[in-house]
């Protein structure tokens, strides 16, 4: 019984391997080639000319060989994605693949995503066993949102460029596509002369907020702000600068009624642009959307957190399986 089960298992796994999804498509030259082959074949059958049979034999064997050699090329290929943390929608980004050959070598592979949400492909001229190769696709994601990348299409024109054989590999990854940028016009600046960090005006840094740095006490300044420990060690009067309260905290929110679609995308883009501007002005920005909240904070890392959150707006409640194709 167990033997039968094992055999069945083995058969099943083998048949699964053999029935690995492949698609074969004739290229433009391949189509012309097929037409010529049929023509020469008809000529050979019609006249019985052995030389035409000979030519036909070569033509047919090249077709068969294309199938076999291209199978050799795309078999035993393993591909891994090297994804960036997030990408902006509508902008070209480098999508990298690490290609490994488990056996033998392969030429002329083309790698692309199975999903339509990402376009762009990478070219592998040559990869050999044991030497992983990282290749880059100049990809573009068309729309905002988490994109579930589940399949990689490995195709090849090898050996003669007559057919394109494609094999679909199942590799799961999640790519976060941030809202488009540079799309929204900046609103007019509310107030000129605002800067972040040391170069800001004293007005901005005279508050009661977080510690920002130390500065020598100017004549006539409030003595309560003197940092006594530091002043003693340096022999000069040093004043603690704290962030002013007008370094404000913003919490942006997304309209919870907007439905998934262009309208919501547009809103997310505007929010992202506003976030970027506010952060650049030195404010702290938080986000509230559909039951998800991010506390106001600052810094480049925080901006990316916000962008990621904006990317997820509208997809939050989706299970990964139902993520947009």
């Amino acid at each position, binding site marked *: 019984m167990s033997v039968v089960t094992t055999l069945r298992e083995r058969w099943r796994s083998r048949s699964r391997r053999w029935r690995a999804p492949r698609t074969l498509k004739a290229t433009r030259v391949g189509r012309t080639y097929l037409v*010529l082959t049929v023509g*020469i074949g008809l000529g050979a059958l019609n006249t019985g000319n*052995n*030389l035409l049979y000979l030519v036909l034999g070569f033509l047919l064997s090249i077709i068969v060989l294309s199938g076999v050699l291209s199978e050799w090329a795309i078999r035993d290929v393993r591909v891994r994605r090297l994804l960036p943390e997030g990408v902006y929608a509508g902008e070209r980004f480098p999508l990298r693949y690490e290609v490994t050959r488990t056996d033998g070598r392969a030429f002329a592979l083309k790698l692309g995503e199975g999903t339509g949400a990402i376009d762009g492909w990478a*070219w592998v001229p040559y990869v050999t066993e044991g030497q992983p190769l990282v290749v880059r696709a100049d990809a573009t994601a068309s729309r905002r949102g988490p994109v579930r990348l589940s399949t990689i299409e490995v195709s090849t024109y090898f050996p003669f460029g007559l057919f394109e054989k494609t094999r679909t590999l199942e590799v799961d990854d999640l790519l976060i596509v941030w809202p488009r940028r540079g799309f929204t016009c900046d609103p007019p600046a509310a107030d000129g002369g605002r800067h972040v960090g040391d170069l800001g005006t004293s007005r901005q840094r005279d508050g009661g907020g977080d510690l920002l740095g130390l500065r020598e006490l100017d004549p006539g300044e409030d003595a309560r702000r003197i940092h006594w420990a530091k002043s003693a060690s340096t022999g000069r009067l040093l004043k603690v600068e704290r962030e002013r309260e007008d370094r404000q905290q913003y919490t942006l929110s997304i309209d919870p009624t907007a439905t998934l679609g262009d309208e919501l995308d547009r809103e997310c883009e505007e929010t992202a642009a506003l976030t970027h501007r506010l952060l650049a002005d030195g404010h702290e920005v938080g986000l509230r959307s559909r039951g998800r909240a991010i506390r106001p904070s600052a810094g480049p890392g925080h901006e990316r957190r916000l962008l990621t959150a904006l990317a997820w707006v509208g997809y939050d409640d989706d299970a990964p399986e139902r993520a947009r194709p």
Partner: protein
Amino acid sequence: MNVVERRRLRLRLRDLAALSAFTAVGLSGSVPVWVSVLFVLAFAISMFDRRPLARQRAWAVVALLAVAVVLFGLAFKGALDLVVAAVSFAALVTAHRLVSEPSAATDQQALLASLLLIAGAAALSGEIWFAACLLAFGVFSCLHLGLSVVEGPVDRNEDLPMGPVFRQVSLGVGLALAGGVAFFVLFPRLSWNLASRRATPGLLGQSATGMSDRVRLGGGGDLKTRARIVLRARLQPDPKQDELDRYWVGRRFDVFDGREWHGSGVPVAASDFVHLTANDRRDTEQEIEVLPAYGARTLVALEHPVMFTRARATSASGTTATQLVHVPGEEVRFAAEAISYTYVAYSRPGTWMRDDEGERTRALALPTIDPRVAALAKTIVGTETDPLRRAHLVERWLKTSLSYSLELEGEVADPLTEFLFVRKSGHCEHFATALAVLLRTLDVPARITVGFFGGKRVDDRYLIRAGDAHAWVEAWVDDRGWVTLDATPESGRGSQPVALLAMLADLGDRIEEAWRSRVVDYSFIDQVQFVRNLVRPPERAEREGTSTTRAPVSVPWRGLASAGVGLVAYLVVRRFQRRERLHPAATFLARLEGQLAQLQVPRREGEPLEELTRRLTGERHPLAPPLEQATRRYLEARFGARPLPEAEQRRLLEALRAPAQLVR
């Protein structure tokens, strides 16, 4: 190899593929000359990397359309064969693509048009060089396509390791060729209509034998050195001799005017078969194929023909049955002009008994000749009176006293006396004429016969070359009939190919014979035979046994040929690998890397020497210590300005060899 070099290599391969395809049609001789000139011109321009038509796209298309209209108009009017017109157009399209701006699409179009040329050539000719062109076209075009595919859709500056690419693509090409042969062998021949047009005489195929309607003395005998095969014959019963020593009778001449012989027969009405005498069972049956190189219409059969039948003629429009015209006492010829023929002949060995008063009388007629000739005849025979013995005496005298020579330049007024008394050397026609005339002065009826002598067995057929052409004498002896006499010394009888070329010609015969019997005439019956052999292996093994005994003949040639091909390939690769400026240490690197490859040191593709050395050291490979030394010295010489003398190079390479032997 960088991008520019790879691109140049691809274009060269494309051009060569196109040239091979065009050669296949060009050699059939049917393409108009101006098309050939245009194509060769385009090829030459392309080889110099000039693309004059890159800008003039519209004009080129208009010109091509105009040419198409002209060509197909000619074909419509019947002035040009339709296939030839199509092929010419394809050739012009290919030529246009060669001198246009190269791109992936242009290259592919050039190759597809070349493929049409190849198909056209298959329809137009069946000579062995078609196989060579097909092979070359397949190899070049597959290499080009493979390289283009590896290059990819965009130009990249990356260095590609060409070794593995070539290896893989060549493997592909080899498999494609093998697969093509397999398809050819096994693809069922559904059609019984054998309409192969292996019928054009070809550029090389202009009439090669001197089987004309008269024999004119004088001139040289360059015929004897020609190796073109003119006839193929299968004999039944099979004499099983490697070199046949029998006469093939073609045409008899009985009227001599002092300078040339001609026939006197009057043709009778054409018929499907010709009986020369009653048939009987002891006859030798011959299936004879007349190749385009034969260039005449006279039927040939072994001595002495008794019947001709089942004649078929192959012309440009196909193969049809043809009728035969009998010219009694002279020849049997095909009624229709065609390019090649097949027929069946029956012959009876021995003497020819048919007695005809008229024939005998004509065989005694003499023109006015130098009296010294009759005197010479008298001297030779002396007191002998028996006609047969007299004939043999004259024959022996000629054989021994005069010498055979092909170098006879210039026209002379009286070739016979010139031959007998001045030069004392000549070729078979001189000997035959002298014998016939001498016998006639002795009142022995004699006439000359033109045909072939010999035949070389290849597989189960006898091949007769243009050089086997011969002339000899038949003399009438009462009670014996027409007796064959041959005064030509043995050395001058068969063909006399130049000695050095003899082996080459032999190999060529075998290949050509194999091509004709295994490829051009391959049929459903052969397929059945093949499958039967597969099913019954013992017989096949036996066949292989016989073929291996024959193989050694061609081994040296095969070796030479492959060495030549290897040399050419090496030179091509060298040319493309040559760098602009070589550092002196680079030669050491090349030698070192060559030796590493020879020692089969496992090396990754594109792995620099330093990394290889580091890796081997890490793996504690036995070769690591000497390799480390060599690498270090190379780096010092290359980048550290410490020269590496030749002696040290040798020492370093030598040091690498010793542990390698230990490993083995």
